[in-house]
């Protein structure tokens, strides 16, 4: 039970952080909704109120639609890939008698600590059509027909970025899942083993259902992070490749420009509001469907 103390003590603890939070987070968050309903170039102090025009403009903006669809593809296809690999590795690492779990999980986490700006350089090299390692490997394997300009078309470009992203983030979700596994008492799985259940059966019938809460949190975090995803893609193309824009990079391009400043700040704010609504709908909706009281074990 929390204690009741004098109000000035509570305030003493809350106020410094709260002031910072309100001024640099809460007010900007609310202001964003207002700016999204204005036309504003950022230099003249004048914000012209135009209602929902920015939002209706999006309906006819083909680049916005590309960015929106790309973001959705990213979220769904990338999510399936990342969580398929994560669940597969969780299974492999928690099999009875497996050695080296700590080494693999820690090592897989490491790319998560590398700057996306630096990784962008590396991936552009990997996917380079002329001397990139990917095409070189395909050539060595005799799969010449698979060789292509990986970042050239929308399909392969998105696929390439999704793969690069999953290399960075699988480790993070893997550690979340493994820490969830540690909270499941061994007795459950031992009992099943004595009953003669195979490792795969144990994983899908016992471990995975008990990991549900962790999985819900992981997927929620994935949705939150992927909708605002910016740094890798921007460092790779600088927003110039409109076919591979996501909402994060398109919002930046509209607000602060690619090569020459655009400064459509009102429109940029409107895009960011759409991003926020997507997070609320997808992350919130997902939690609503799958969340439930913490399971007892």
């Amino acid at each position, binding site marked *: 039970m929390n204690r009741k103390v004098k109000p000035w003590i509570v305030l003493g603890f809350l106020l410094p952080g709260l002031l910072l939070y309100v001024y640099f987070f809460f007010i900007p968050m609310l202001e964003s909704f207002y700016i999204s309903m204005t036309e504003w170039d950022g230099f003249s102090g004048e914000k012209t109120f135009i209602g929902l025009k920015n939002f209706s403009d999006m309906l006819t903006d083909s680049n916005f639609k590309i960015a929106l669809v790309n973001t959705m593809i990213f979220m769904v296809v990338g999510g399936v890939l990342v969580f398929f690999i994560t669940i597969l590795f969780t299974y492999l690492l928690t099999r009875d008698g497996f050695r080296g779990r700590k080494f693999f999980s820690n090592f897989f986490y490491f790319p998560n600590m590398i700057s996306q700006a630096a990784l962008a350089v590396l991936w552009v090299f990997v996917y380079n059509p002329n001397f990139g390692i990917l095409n070189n490997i395909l050539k060595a394997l005799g799969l010449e027909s698979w060789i292509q300009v990986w970042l050239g078309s929308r399909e392969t470009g998105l696929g390439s970025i999704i793969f690069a992203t999953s290399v960075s983030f699988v480790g993070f979700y893997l550690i979340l899942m493994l820490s969830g596994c540690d909270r499941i008492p061994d007795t459950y799985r031992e009992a099943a083993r004595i009953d003669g259940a195979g490792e795969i059966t144990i994983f899908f019938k016992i471990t995975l259902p008990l990991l549900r809460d962790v999985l819900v949190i992981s997927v929620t975090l994935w949705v939150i992070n992927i909708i605002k995803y910016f740094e890798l893609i921007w460092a790779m193309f600088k927003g110039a490749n409109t076919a591979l824009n996501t909402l994060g990079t398109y919002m930046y391009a509209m607000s602060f420009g690619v090569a020459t400043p655009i400064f459509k700040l009102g429109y940029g704010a409107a895009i960011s509001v759409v991003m926020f609504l997507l*997070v609320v709908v997808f992350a919130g909706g997902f939690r609503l469907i799958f969340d439930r009281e913490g399971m007892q074990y």
Partner: protein
Amino acid sequence: MNTKTRRFWGNLVSYLLLSFWTLIILGILVWVLYSSFKDNVAIYQDPWSLPEKIIWDNYVSAWSTMKMSSYFMNSIIIVFSSIFISLLLSAMITHALTRYEFKGRRALTNLFIFSISVPTQMLLIPLYSQLMNVGLINSRFGLILVYSALWLPFSIFVLMGFFRTVPHEIEESAIMDGCGEFRMFFNIMIPMVQPGLICVAVFNFVAMWNEYMLAMVFASKQNLRTISLGMYALRDSMMYSSNWGGLFAAIIIMLIPSAIIFLTLQKYVIQGLTLGAVKG
């Protein structure tokens, strides 16, 4: 097949799959490392070949000509100040949220947790005008305040898990001994949640060290650039003057602090993920 052979094949397949993923990561890391010892000509001839002789020049040019030294120092100042501020303020808030009963406690807790889902882009434009109004665009202090504020909700989220594990009996006995609230916070709570503080510090370090979108908008002047923004700018300038060897050396320089922190403090990260994210 008996159990033993089945387990053998199972392990073999496991190690093959895991090694494949390991190879992708290791391959990239090793390639950057040895490329940082090659000169431009060698990189152009074959970007994948091993260096014929080891050249340290790339590190010298990355550090001085490519201004990594200045970017590095900027990042150290900005990132460590921001970590300190956000850590202190979030610990104080978490202490109040998990120890005291007051009106609006639940609402405030929910507000902070909800804030995690706000995309950074949504704050970008309002913050830009906010900082412009108070003259903090293109200043280290402005970026420090932005970083501290933006990482506050996440820090609180992770710290909550740690603060909740401290039993309430400890406070009771401290009160009996006549310990004041602020002394209790600094002398009893802080030491007890130390692993949590380290965990948040590591998380925030990684995120802030690698962040460049906010830095690009709020502190883009050359002498204020953080290391991540510097890296982005370097890559951008490669279109005009290419010194790829230097760029690879710069990547390694940038990676060293993260690698040191990863090797020494990762157990706190894993513990933090277990406590904060999973139970939160």
